[in-house]
């Protein structure tokens, strides 16, 4: 799986769950500061990615996920380990 595909999936999850415009999103977009997403919203985004990629990401791993790029990295690392 290419990283760009994963990134696209994160964008799509943000568009669907956070109701934001895809054009506004980039690797450095911050969930909390740019998208006004609370911790539950971040979990919802991650849940969608877990379902899509058939992964289970431990709760503790979410602490460091501040940006869209970090979310893509997290999914990529779990895919690589799977």
């Amino acid at each position, binding site marked *: 799986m290419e990283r760009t595909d994963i990134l696209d999936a994160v964008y799509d999850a943000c568009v669907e769950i956070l109701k934001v415009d895809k054009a506004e999103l980039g690797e450095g977009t911050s969930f909390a500061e740019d998208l006004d997403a*609370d911790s539950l919203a971040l979990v919802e985004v991650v849940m969608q990615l877990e379902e899509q990629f058939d992964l289970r990401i431990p709760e503790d791993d979410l602490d460091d996920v501040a940006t869209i790029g970090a979310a893509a990295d997290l999914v990529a690392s779990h895919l690589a380990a799977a």
Partner: protein
Amino acid sequence: MSTDRVALVTGGSRGIGAATATALAAAGHAVAIGYRSDEPAAAVVQRQVEDAGGRALPVQVDVADPASVDAAVTGIEAELGRITIAVNNAGITDDGLFIRTDPEHWRRVLGTNLDGAFHVIHRVAPGMLRARWGRIVNVSSVVGLMGSAGQVSYASSKAALVGLTRSLARELGTRPITANVVAPGPIETEMLAAAGDERAAQLAALVPAGRLGRPDEVAAAIAFLCSDAAGFINGAVLPVDGGLGMGH
């Protein structure tokens, strides 16, 4: 009047649960009737719902066992669709003086009454988040706040449901998912009948109305909290006790 929503009522084969399944079906929801062991009773509730033109599915589930809850919910969602209404009504009592209550009895009551609600909500909440709509009603008891001699495990489990519910109300309130408690007083059910006629009469005498409640009177409150009309009621503890618990 169909709203196309899917409800799960645990402990749905008898008493308050059976009345709730019937009431939710009458409100237009497809209802999964969770039962642990009494399949014939669940089938009777299913027939009542279907005779009234509703849709019901009996589902065996031991709420104390997360694997059983997972399997039951997976089956319900395959058959009826995503559950967005969860009524945690399954409950047991194992009465006895505190000093004679051993840890196994304590654990068994908490395992069903409190852990059971946790297991069900934990399994269905992600679907409610996705649906951007949900109703959770946890069936507590007047004794959760009054205390009850001889019911330390039961009362503790019922009080704990309030903390569970109110925390959920705060976490999920923006989605908009509501979580509320209904706290029945003494209701004419098999659970109360097991305590004996004398005890039932004592309890009835404590209620301002001077009588026991009926399961359908509790079900009406639960069905209301599950409705769209109750969308701004969140984290409430609604007594259905004829006034027995007034002031707590």
